[in-house]
């Protein structure tokens, strides 16, 4: 994995202190000491208790990631020897 080190304070300065960021469940669970699936970080995530909705969200995220990988980067390659 590509890892960079940045303090919470610095990160908060750049992206805002209330911005939600994705983190690994297996990293968070030992800190919280309970199963993340039974835990709500704040009221806006209560919807996540609904398994069907969670499944919809996860599949939306997966499909977004797949479409991002499939979309083509625009580029042009110039070979000066041929000019």
């Amino acid at each position, binding site marked *: 994995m590509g890892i*960079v080190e940045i303090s919470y304070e610095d990160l908060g300065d750049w992206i805002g202190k209330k911005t939600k960021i994705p983190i690994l469940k297996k990293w968070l669970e030992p800190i919280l000491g309970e199963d993340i699936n039974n835990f709500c970080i704040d009221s806006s995530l209560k919807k996540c208790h609904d398994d069907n909705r969670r499944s919809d969200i996860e599949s939306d995220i997966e499909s977004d990631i797949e479409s991002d*990988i499939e979309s083509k980067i625009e580029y042009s390659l110039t070979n000066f020897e041929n000019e």
Partner: protein
Amino acid sequence: MNNYFSHLVGQNAVKKKLSFYLDAFHKTSQCPFLLMSGAKGLGKTEFAKSFAKNLYNQDGDRRSFLELNCSTIKNNEQFFEQIFLPLVADNEITILFDECHALPLDLTMAFLTIFNTEKNSRKTFEWNEMTFEFNFKQQTFIFATTETDKIFPPLKDRLTNVDFETYDSDDLSNILKLCLPEVVFINNVEKDIASTIRGNARSAVKRAKEIELYCGSKNRNVFGLNDWADLKDQVGILPLGITHTEKQILEALNNCGSATLTGLAAKIGMSKTALQRDHELYLLNKDLIEIDGKRKITSQGLTICKTF
């Protein structure tokens, strides 16, 4: 110092700086990570390409030049899969990240690690259980943007800035003449033409195209003041190159004396942001309006208004 950019007009400070890096590259095979910044149409891409054209591989061939539109890069995986592995890895190549303020966050973070080189010319980057080798003697990285404020500051710290300036009237006249070697300008008409190009090289090239079409349609190669007046009338070129929206702003301020930003936006039918960013700055720059709490037209603005 060699003059690698004699075919390009203006930007003398940029030419000197880039020539220094090219001379150094020819001795050391190393080049800093460059960030070309400046308003649109100032020649960032053209200079990057000319710079790349002067970088040679170890076998003496010119290096290939890869130009990427960063707004189409979505994430690390897409970049390493579509660009790095097939085109960059183990190749001698120059890569331009155009509109680099639009780089995705994860690639920006990856670049913080990759470009964090103090002395080494190589960097190994590990991501997603894969290893990517960067060799900065083989690969030269150039970034370009109009919006440096949107670049993640730690990344900007790792790049060497090359600032582009707006072109003056003489530079713009020279660009016109360079684009139109067959056309003879008389009565210094090129100075008047240059005043409508807004300091922008790309606009100068576009204006040259209009003149070429005009001369072609008239089947002649001499262009004077009457031709210029005729062309201005036909394609709607206004004094100082102001746009028709800017003309409306001046007319609105001329009619009402002064206006708040909200009032002016309502009169013109534009958002306040677009009005400020796209039009007011130029009118302020040309001393056609002033802002002192409210927007007001200046005496110079009134003079321009009378010509409409």
